[in-house]
């Protein structure tokens, strides 16, 4: 047993650090690039005069001018002002699977064997890299029951887009021009609706049964018609209620000639236990980031590893990695008759592939199942403790008792009793060094928060986090102002005007936009 201690004296760093553009000093340099030696210049030219004149910019980019050590200092300071996955018990960012990614895998991907690869190298010189991709494909085939994977999609949403593109192309090839509707569920990830819309489909949302939280089967039957091109859903959804009717849903979609696509981004509690192919799906993707040892980093270097059944293989984005048995060599195959083309340049984020391969090989079949089992156990432990210890908290759809590896909770009772909202609790949690967020679209659960304990955290870690929630909730009843005005110990205070974050007219996504909208220098 370790120590379970709520860090009441925690205080986050506050560096009062300017934006890097404000630190810029004209003429200051990080690196002075040496002049090209005369002999070299004679052979290859100056490097610029070969470029078409219209492509050479007239003025240099307005980048900050700053020395190396100042850059380093700047970003280290900023890094201290975050509550990232390696510094807090990061179970409060439910749906993101913020689990521990073994650092040994970072050593592997930082090896020059990975970092010095060039995507345009000759196949004969990248046999090792191709072998890793091919073998990860084989492992994922085993895990899922599918026949072929692509690693080209750079994240979950791009994998959903790839699935929507495959559905689109499939019906085009088969002359099914009448099929223009995609069915999804209201509680599936918002991209499951957004991506098919980009492909021109109409999207039909299936609501959850208000009692059980299961996607309404009756509504699904009503929604399916000859116009149904396909189904794109999560299961479990972000409530982490496993849909017991999922096979019926895939069957009714198949009956009208639709394809079934599975957003299995919430795989952590079911991998090794549930095979998507057995639920009737024709394709599905795993997020190599979050689930398979690449940190989940807000659009960072991830892979939505998409697997398909044999009959959909000709539609995959190209190239795919093949093995030539006879000549004992791996190669990139571009010749797929119905390929949807590329969804991203080259072959996928290779470091994510390497980490996933290393992670799966280190765990083995039984280890992967164990990951899922521990994630489920941790989740149900946390749920039991929250219901027992955190005043004013309850679970959404309480009629359905079991959840897989996360739970969408609600502080509705707490808000009714005390007027303290979940957003207040979130800020208060920052005072204890914890990250908590509210969960996302659609907001049919009031005052929501989602806890996803994963397999990475010990019982002590989980208890510590629950202690934080319990304390914040207790304060809401006893001393609500301290919670309402939180955070008190963080880098920044409560944001007074939230419309800055909500009104597109006021948003400041970049420095240039800041200058334009607010005209300050």
């Amino acid at each position: 047993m370790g120590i379970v201690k709520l860090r009441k004296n925690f205080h986050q760093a506050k560096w009062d650090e300017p934006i890097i553009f404000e630190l810029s000093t004209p003429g200051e340099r990080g690196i002075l690039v040496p002049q090209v030696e005369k002999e070299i210049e004679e052979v290859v030219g100056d490097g610029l005069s070969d470029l078409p004149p219209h492509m050479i910019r007239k003025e240099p980019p307005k980048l900050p001018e700053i020395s190396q050590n100042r850059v380093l200092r700047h970003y280290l300071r900023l890094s201290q002002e975050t509550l990232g996955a390696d510094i807090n018990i990061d179970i409060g960012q439910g749906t993101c699977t913020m689990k521990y990614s073994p650092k040994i895998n970072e050593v592997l991907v930082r090896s020059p064997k990975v970092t010095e690869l060039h995507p345009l190298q000759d196949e004969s010189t990248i046999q090792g890299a191709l072998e890793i991709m091919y073998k990860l494909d084989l492992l994922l085939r085993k895990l899922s029951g599918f026949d072929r994977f692509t690693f080209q999609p750079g994240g979950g949403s791009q994998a959903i887009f790839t699935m929507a593109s495959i559905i689109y192309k499939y019906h085009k090839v088969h002359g099914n021009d009448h099929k223009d509707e995609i069915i999804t569920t209201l509680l599936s990830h918002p991209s499951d609706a957004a991506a098919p819309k980009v492909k021109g489909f109409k999207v039909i949302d299936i609501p959850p049964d208000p009692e059980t939280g299961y996607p309404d089967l009756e509504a699904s039957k009503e929604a399916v018609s000859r116009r149904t091109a396909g189904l794109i859903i999560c299961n479990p959804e972000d409530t982490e209620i496993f849909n017991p009717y999922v096979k019926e849903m895939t069957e009714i979609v198949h009956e009208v000639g639709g394809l079934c696509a599975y957003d299995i981004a919430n795989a952590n509690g079911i991998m090794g236990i549930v095979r998507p192919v057995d639920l009737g799906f024709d394709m599905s993707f795993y997020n190599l980031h979050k689930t398979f040892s690449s940190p989940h980093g807000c659009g960072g270097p991830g892979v939505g590893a998409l697997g398909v059944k044999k009959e959909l293989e000709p539609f995959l984005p190209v190239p795919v990695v093949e093995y030539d048995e006879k000549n004992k060599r791996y190669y990139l195959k571009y010749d797929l008759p119905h390929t949807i083309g590329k969804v991203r340049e080259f072959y996928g984020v290779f470091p994510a592939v390497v980490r996933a391969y290393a992670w799966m090989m280190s765990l083995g079949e039984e280890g992967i199942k164990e990951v899922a089992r521990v994630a489920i156990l941790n989740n149900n432990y946390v749920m039991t403790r929250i219901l027992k210890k955190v005043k004013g908290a309850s679970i959404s759809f309480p009629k359905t008792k079991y959840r897989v590896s996360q739970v969408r909770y609600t502080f509705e009772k707490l808000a009714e009793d005390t007027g303290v909202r979940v957003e207040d609790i979130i800020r208060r949690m920052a005072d204890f060094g914890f990250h908590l967020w509210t969960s996302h679209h659609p907001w049919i659960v009031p005052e929501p928060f989602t806890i996803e304990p994963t397999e990475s955290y010990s019982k002590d870690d989980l208890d510590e986090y629950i202690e934080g929630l319990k304390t914040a909730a207790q304060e809401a009843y006893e001393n609500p102002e301290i919670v309402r005005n939180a955070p008190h110990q963080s880098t920044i205070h409560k944001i007074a005007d939230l419309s800055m974050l909500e009104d597109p007219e006021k948003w400041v996504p970049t420095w240039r936009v800041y200058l334009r909208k607010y005209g300050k220098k």
Partner: protein
Amino acid sequence: MEKKKVGLIVNPIAGMGGRVGLKGTDGWDIVEKAIKLGAKPWSPERAKRVFKKLLTIKDEIELLTYQGEMGERVAVECSFEPKVIGKPASARTTAEDTKRAAREMVKQGVDLIIFVGGDGTARDIYDSIGLDAVVVGVPAGVKMYSGVFASSPEAAGELAVRYLKGEIKDMIEQEVLDIDEEKFRQGVFSVRLYGYLRIPFDKRYIVGGKSTTSINEKLNQEAIATDVIEDMEDNCYYIIGPGTTTKTILKKLNLDYSLLGVDIIYNGELVGKDLNEKQILEIIDGKKAKIIVSPIGGQGYVFGRGNHQISPAVIRKVGGKPNIIIVATQQKIISLRGRPLLVDTNDRTLDKELSGWYRVIVGYKERLMYRVEPG
């Protein structure tokens, strides 16, 4: 810091009829009947529950109210020192008193008016000040079809506090509905949409990555309108029901429209504005027609609240369920908390025929399967 000015209007007779089985308390003859039946004033108690929440910011507000039962008494009982800006014309308060009080408060530049009552009170406020002030409705009436009421007195108090503290900066326009008395006297139950009041927009459903705001509500309405327009068929009459969501369609087509009435468009042109049942039937007689409606009021009625012009005869004439298009913003759907949409056409057989699953248009190229049931 300058104190915020808050107006308080209590309709002392609101809600009295309900407990004794009377439909509303509009008028003193009914009140007397209610008192005889044992009714007790209800709204002052409701008002007190609001004050419990307001106590937390007592020193930051200046309370303006009317004499006696219209607010002064409850305020004093809750240890506030209100500024009394007027008094009811007689001991028996009337709608006129409510209207006068609201107008006076707007004149005095209040930041917020809290009113305690039902649909009748909401209507009086709307009649006198329209969108000139931000209001919070405390539910205390018999009839509360309007969307302007908070879910409870505590929720109303909470909303007021958050707004006054500057935590809510967003406003939303909500429907004011009330029984159409003229029709009611003729024995026809009919709820009319009278207009809209501005209330603080409380994101009851707190958000992480994305947010629901009144800005999003407007964008959502535009997205819905774009979708509807894209799918419109040639040579088909579209009967457009009242409401801000449906009327965004006409706005987008650059057509004139009646916000609270029923309009008809045909091949992108307006062929009738603010029509009654008879006019609608004449226009669509023997023609292909569809109805576009949006849930109105807090309970999610798609027929029978605020759109009686679209009568059972009209609904049957267009061919019923397959030719009814329901549009609703996500906020509207979320506020139903999983409860079905309702129909109350005054024709039970038709209500049953209209029941079942609909593909409600909730965004551009997005439909939500949603149940409709008899109200």
